[in-house]
Every structure is written in C-alpha cells, then in structure tokens.
C-alpha cells in the first residue's frame, strides 16, 4: 500500500519561478537558469511513491534537492507545483489545522542542521513535540527520557544544546523526533555526525522500529553502505530530478544511466549481491532414508561432485563428497562417517563478499550451503558460481 504518493512535485527558489520553469522546459541546465534568472531549481517534477513501512532512502549529489523534497513532504515549504497524497489525502489541499495534525501525529522530522532550541535544555528539547500536543508533564518527561536513553544522552538531560558536541546535538534531534512516535519519520542526514559505533546502533534501532512498529522512514544519507544496509528502496536525485528508484540491488546491478553508474561505481557489489541470487538448487539426500548409493546416483545424474545431506525436515546436516562416497562404498562405512559437517553454511542474504571470505578460509574445498532462517536447505553455491559472480560484479577498483 502506498503511504505517500508524490505527483509532479516541483519547487523553484527565487523571484520568478514561472520563467525558470519555462527555461527548464526548454531544456536548460540548473546552473544556466541560475545565471539567467537568479532562480534555483530545487525539485523538478518528481513523481514517486513511498510504501507503507519501508525505509526509503534518498541519495544524490549535494544540492540535488533531497532536503527540499523532504521539507515539501511535510509542507515546511510550499511547492511551486505538484501534489502529495498522504494515505490518499492531498497534503497541499489541507487546511492549516489539518497540516498541523499531520505534523503532530504522522510525520516526525530530523533536521540536517539539527535546529535545536538553544533556550531549552536537552530534555525540554526532546519534550517539545509532546508538549505541543498537550501531553502532561510527567508523562512527556518520561517519554522524553526514554527517547534520550535510546541515544544514550540521559545524563546530559539538563544541559543546554550548546554545551554538547556536534554528534550529541544530532542525537538530541533524533531523540526529539523519536519521542513523538510518528508514523513517518523524515530524516535528513540524521546520522551524518555520528561516530561508527553509535551510528551502527542507530541503524539497527531504525530497522528494528521499522520491523516492529511498521513505521515508514524517509532517509537521506550520503553513505552508500548505509543506504544499502538499511534501505528498502533508494531514490537517486540529480539537479532536482529523479534519476532512478529501486531496491539497492536493482540500482547497483542495473544503473539507469551514467550518473547513477558513476554514483555507485565505488560500491563493492559483492557486499550487496546475496547468496540467494547466485545459489543453485541443491541435490540432497535424506539422512536415515537414503544411503550412499542414492547419493552417488544423484551425483552421477547431475554431474556434481558433492551432495547435501539433510534430515527429514530438510534441516542441513552436512555434505558428502564423491571421494567420501567411494570410500564408504569401498569400506562399507555409514553415511554419518563420511559426512562433512563443517562445510560453509550461510543464510540466503549473506553478501557475496562475506561468502567469499568464508569459502576462502575453507580453501574452497566444498561448496557453500545456503539455508533459510530455520536452517532448511535452500541451495548451494559452488566455487565456479562464486567466481563467475565476482567476475561480473566485482566493481572497478583503482
């Protein structure tokens, strides 16, 4: 279900938006228009949807209109043109009263430049949204404290923002938005000033919130890894226009144009492509039911050097190799005796880069087994498949 539908959204800064739009239609560049009219194109006819409960990441060069889009979403700035439907209702047509309700209940925001209130303590800053909604003091203080604890700043509750470091201030901004518990969170480079440890924590928190509470996040970041890590879909912008929207994999594997390609050039695709996408269906035998012969037969039929052993529930037990089988037949050993249990087993969303390392550690002796969350067999990845994947996605390195 679409949470937000954005249609034809346009924002031109400056005194003569009409003229700028005309020039835009004539195919002029953003910078030319700036020179000619003094108007800056913020967003240029953007049309897209944001689904309920997703983490929607916006990326793009600096000045490409990301912040402008996000501020248009909660109508902090009025668009030059276009409409935004929130749960089917046009935000642009709402009365001031309704917009206020939306901002209070449905949309929280973390600002790129923090925008903390210097006259309020950290706690009072975090309380702000609740105070606005008329929540009682005790209750809102409690909620705010919880929110502060989430960003580990509870011991600074009584300080003023200007006594905090940049990263701490950003976290206060984060806590302030979270305290409100809105459906949609607009986060404008919300993690940019955080150190890696806290950033990781925050990312996890975000994903957790999304999964547990089905919240929707619209998240601007400059960190591709972060985008790929937490984003369900990524939108790439340039000079106000949308270049591509898609899942991280789509964007990485099928960049829509040169700009996107250049943008993702430095990403090691192998961190993104998962085991699932290159695994092959696995031939397996069931322990206790099938014997070495069945295994051998399967190997021969499929011309493969190993076969996976599962139990009756398809829970993986290990693999057997052709040599092992030969040995078993020769020495009449049981399947258990020749079972290789310490082969590499990964879940289906393990990135290739990790897989490679794991397999390298085991010297590529056996193929990797891919399982789902419950440990059931999903497929296998042989050395060859892995290598050819790398040959395809390895990215250009300098």
């Amino acid at each position, binding site marked *: 279900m679409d949470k937000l539908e954005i249609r034809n959204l346009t924002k031109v800064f400056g005194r003569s938006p009409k003229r700028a739009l005309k020039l835009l239609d004539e195919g002029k560049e953003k910078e030319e228009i700036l020179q000619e009219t003094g108007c800056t194109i913020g967003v240029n006819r953007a049309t897209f949807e944001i689904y309920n409960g997703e983490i929607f990441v916006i990326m793009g060069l600096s000045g490409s209109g990301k912040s402008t889009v996000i501020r248009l979403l909660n109508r*902090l700035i009025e668009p030059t043109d276009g409409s935004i439907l929130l749960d089917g209702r046009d935000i642009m047509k709402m009365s001031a009263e309704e917009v206020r309700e939306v901002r209070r209940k449905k949309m929280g925001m973390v600002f790129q430049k923090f925008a903390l*209130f210097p006259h309020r303590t950290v706690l009072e800053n975090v309380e702000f949204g609740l105070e606005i909604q008329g929540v009682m003091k005790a209750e809102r203080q409690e909620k705010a404290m919880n929110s502060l604890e989430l960003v580990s700043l509870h011991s600074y509750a009584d300080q003023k923002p200007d006594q905090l470091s940049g990263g701490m201030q950003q976290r206060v901004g984060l806590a302030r938005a979270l305290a409100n518990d809105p459906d949609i969170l607009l986060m404008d480079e919300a993690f940019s000033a955080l150190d890696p440890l806290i950033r990781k924590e925050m990312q996890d928190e975000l994903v957790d919130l999304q999964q547990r509470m089905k919240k929707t996040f619209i998240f601007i970041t400059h960190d591709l890894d972060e985008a790929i890590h937490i984003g369900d879909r990524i939108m790439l912008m340039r000079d106000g226009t949308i270049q591509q929207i898609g899942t991280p994999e789509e964007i990485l594997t099928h960049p829509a144009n040169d700009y996107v390609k250049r943008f993702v050039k430095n990403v090691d695709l192998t961190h993104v492509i998962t085991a699932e996408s290159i695994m092959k269906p696995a031939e397996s035998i069931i322990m206790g039911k099938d014997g070495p012969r069945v295994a051998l037969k399967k190997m021969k039929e499929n011309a493969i050097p190993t076969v996976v052993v599962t139990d009756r529930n398809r829970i993986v037990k290990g693999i057997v190799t052709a040599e092992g089988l030969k040995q078993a037949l020769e020495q009449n050993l049981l399947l258990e005796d020749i079972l290789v249990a310490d082969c590499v087993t990964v879940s289906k969303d393990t990135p290739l880069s990790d897989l490679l390392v794991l397999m390298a550690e085991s010297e590529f002796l056996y193929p990797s087994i891919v399982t789902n969350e419950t440990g059931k067999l999903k497929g296998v990845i042989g050395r060859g498949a892995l290598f050819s994947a790398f040959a395809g996605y390895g990215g250009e390195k300098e």
Partner: protein
Amino acid sequence: MIPKIPLAEWIEWLVNWLQDHFDPVFQIIKNMIEPTVTFFTRILTVLPPLAMISILIFFILWLTQIWTAVLSLAGLLLIWNLGYWDESIQTLSLVLTSTLIAIIIGIPLGLWSGRNDRVQAFLKPILDFMQTMPAFVYLIPAVFFFSLGTVPGVIASVIFAMPPTIRFTSLGLRQVPIDLKEAAEAFGATTRQKLTKVEIPLARQTILAGVNQTIMLSLSMVVTASMIGAEGIGAVVLESITRLKVGIGFESGLAIVIIAIILDRLTQNLNQNRMETGSRHRQIPLLAKTRKWAAPVAVLTVLALTITSYAQSGVKRNEIKLIYVNWVSEEASTYTLKNILEKEGFPVKLIRVDAGPMYDAIATGNADAMLAAWLPTTGAQYYDRYKKDLVNLGVNLEKTRIGLVVPKYVNINSIEELASHKDQFDQKIIGIDPGSGTMLLAKETIKQYNLGMKLLEGSDAAMVAELDRAYKKKKPIVITGWTPHWMFLKYDLKYLDDPKKTFGEPENIYTIVRKGFKEDQPEACKMIDQFFWTTRDMEEVMLDVANGMTPDQAAKKWIEKHPNQVAEITAGVQKNK
C-alpha cells in the same frame, strides 16, 4: 499657489467633536486607569516607608543578586532621606500603570507586526507619530477629555513610551532564526505555541530591552505629566525648576533616576535569570534556594497589602480632599487644617496644584475644600468663572497686604519719602520673580511715585537672603513684601505707607468648598467653616517650615501651642470614630 491647508482648523474641530461625542468612551478609559494607579499607590503606601522598603528589598533579594538588593536599598533609603518618599510612590504607581498598559497593548501589537509585514508598514509611521508628536500638543486635548490629574498623564506616558516595546518586540521576532521557527512548525506547533514556546523566548532579550526603554521613557514623561496635574515627584521637579532651584530639581530628579535604576535592574535580571538557569547559584547564595517560594509569597504579600489598604480605605472612604495652590502661605494653612481634621478623626488627602486647576477641581467636585481663595483681586479671574459651582464659606484670614517693606530701623515711613532717600538704598528695590502680581504692582508704584529706583528681580528666597544680609549689618534695604509672610516674625519689619494706593486694597483669604460637601460631611464642613486664624498664626507655621520643619511638623507644633484656637475651630464638632 495652493492655499494653505487648514489643518489647524480641522484639528480644532475634531477635538471639539470628540469632546462632544465621545465622552462616555473617555470616561470608561478614565475609570480603568484611575483605579489602577490608585491601587498601586495604595498598596505601596499602606505601610510606613521603612517597612515598605524592607518588604521591597526582600523581594528584590529574591529576584536578583545580593548587590542589586544592596544598591536598591541604598537608593530607596536616599529617596526617603531626601523626603521624596510619597511623591516617589505616586510616580512609581504612574509609571507602573503606564508601563503595564504599554506592555499589554504593545507586546501583542509588536508580535503582530513582527509576523506581518503589512502591519509593520502600517504601524511604523504611527509609532513615529506617537514618539515625536510633542506631548504638549495632545496633553491639552487630553485635559479636555479626561480633566486634569493622573489619567491624562498616564495616557501621555503610554503614547510616548509604548513605541519601543512594539518596535523591539517586532524586531526580536524577526531575528529568530528561521530554522528554529521551521522546527517548531514541523512538530505541528500552532501559531500560538510557536510564539510562546519558541519565538518569544528567543526574542526575549530584545523584547525586554524594548520594555526597558518603555519604562525609561515613561519615567522621562513624569515631569511633563505633572504639568497637567499628575501627582508625584515630577511636580516637585517642575516646581523647583520654575523657581530656578537647580539643587532641589536635581535631588528630586535623582529620585526618578533611582526608580529607573531599580526598575532597570529588575527587568535586566528577569532577563538573565532565564538565560542561564541552574548555574548561577554561586552568585546568589542567599535566597536562591527559597526562590520557588517567591511567587506565592509575593502574591500573598500583595494580597495582604491590598486587603489592608482597602480595609484602611474603608475607613478612609470619605476622605476629605483638601486642595491648595503651590504657595508657602497656603501650604501652611492647609496643613494646619489637615492636622486639625485628622486629630478629630477625619481622614484627609492633600492635593497641590496651580491656581486655575484648584478652582476647577472644587467646581467639578474633584476636591472638597480649599483655604486659598485670595479675593477680591488675586483669585478673581478664576473665582468669577466658577462662582456658580462654588460654595464660599467666608474668610479664614483677614487682611493680607502687599507693599514695600523696610526693616524697622530704617528711618522713613512712606513710599513718598523713598524718592528722596533712594541713594541710601543704592536706588534698588529688592523684588521677587518677574511674573508675579506683586512685581507688577511694584513697578506701577515706582512709576506713580516717580521713585526712579531699580526693581531687582529674583525670587522669594533670594529676597529674604538679601534682607537677612542687610538686616545683620543694619543696612537700609527696601523689599517688596506681603503678608502673611514669615519674615515678619523673624525680622522687625514695617510696611511703607502707600498714599496713592498703588498696591491696591488689602485682600482676604476665603474658604471655599464644593457644592454638596456640606450635605455629605456636615461635621467636617462645620470645622472647615470654623477654621480661622491670623496672619501671625500663619507666619508662625511658615517660619517653622522656612527653618527646616516639614509642613506637617510645623502644623502640629502650632496646634499644640494654640489649644484654645483649635478648640474654637473644633467647637461643636463630633469626633469622627
């Protein structure tokens, strides 16, 4: 050429029209302002000065730092020591009222204009108008509309003092960083919440600086306000300045400045307190911990004072308003009457004004009685005008006199002799202030008698100083004198005969009360009617005052020394309970 636009005529017409048609509105305004001023004056005067100072200092101590309190204490004690306590309280009440009104009107207007360019553009010239249109111009209409007294003073102060509050509230609001406004909006703050929770706190410093200016300007209007009868320290300044007494002018001006400094410190502290919470306990070790009690205690105290003052005023409700003109002679008689009345249990309020307003006040019922009608000459112009609205209770002092006066040791007795002896006096007659009636008559005299002497101008005080100097050296001197005057007690003086009567006939001083006063306060009226004394009595009191007593002390002393006379005055009057 375009003819001159008859703006002046239009305005005069407008003023008349307003006077005719808007009186009810003006009455409503008056009825709102007057009680407020009275309220402040009452709660501030319900206790004796030193007690009041203690209470004030206690609160200042609570609100601010110790040394602000010390400074304020010093200032207030100085005011009290200089003897301007009551006047200062009146001034403070006036200023508090105007500031209050200016803030109540100004801050909303400022907020509005801070958020709306059109309003700002509209208000700007009006504010310019308010600040630069000379107060004198609208004080006159203000008197037409509100009659003399505190109310037009407050209104003039508000008009002059309000603009800074509006301007700086607007400026402060416009200086709030836009991203913080946006942040508030993003959380769904209503316009009002944005104002109260973000914009006003952030603009606070600038707004308070504006309010501070409003207080300052309103204090600077105190003297102007006193020109139209507003009571307080301004009247003292005005009086001293018209008498060229720079020292007293400065003294009383200083009282205004002290009030200003204290109010300034308070608003300033209000400012800082909010700016840095939590971390200033090192500077106020004294009462900081009990600060949370300040508000409730303040409310309770004010309540208590209010109740007390209004309880007292329950007794005072039919207080007798004695009005008098700003002359030493009338001061003496009025204070004496006041003390007699009070001894008999009648509460009295004194009002000091110029001659015109004095008659006006009695005629309009704004005051009850006066002892200062010099008739038939001096007060004639006013008396004739208001005659039908006055009740004349008859003479309270007979035979005032004006003339040329010499010490008894001088060997001439008539003005006519003067011409031939003028060298003895250096050809000089020592006079007083140029404008006074006495001087005009003295000039006439010089002409009529062909004295060929020079009439020196100066002041009452200067003349007496000159007399004193000559008297000590037994040098001949001739001065313009009048009775009653205390110098006749202090020095042996005599009037020179005036065969041509150029100084006119002696006058009497009459007691006048308002219509209906007799019915309202028969006992008090009887006593006022029976008040009668001689120039010698009056001079006794005046001499004491000239020697440094307060009028009250001098009056009490006279009352003590003349029990029989007092008995006559109070004869047949029932004491008030």
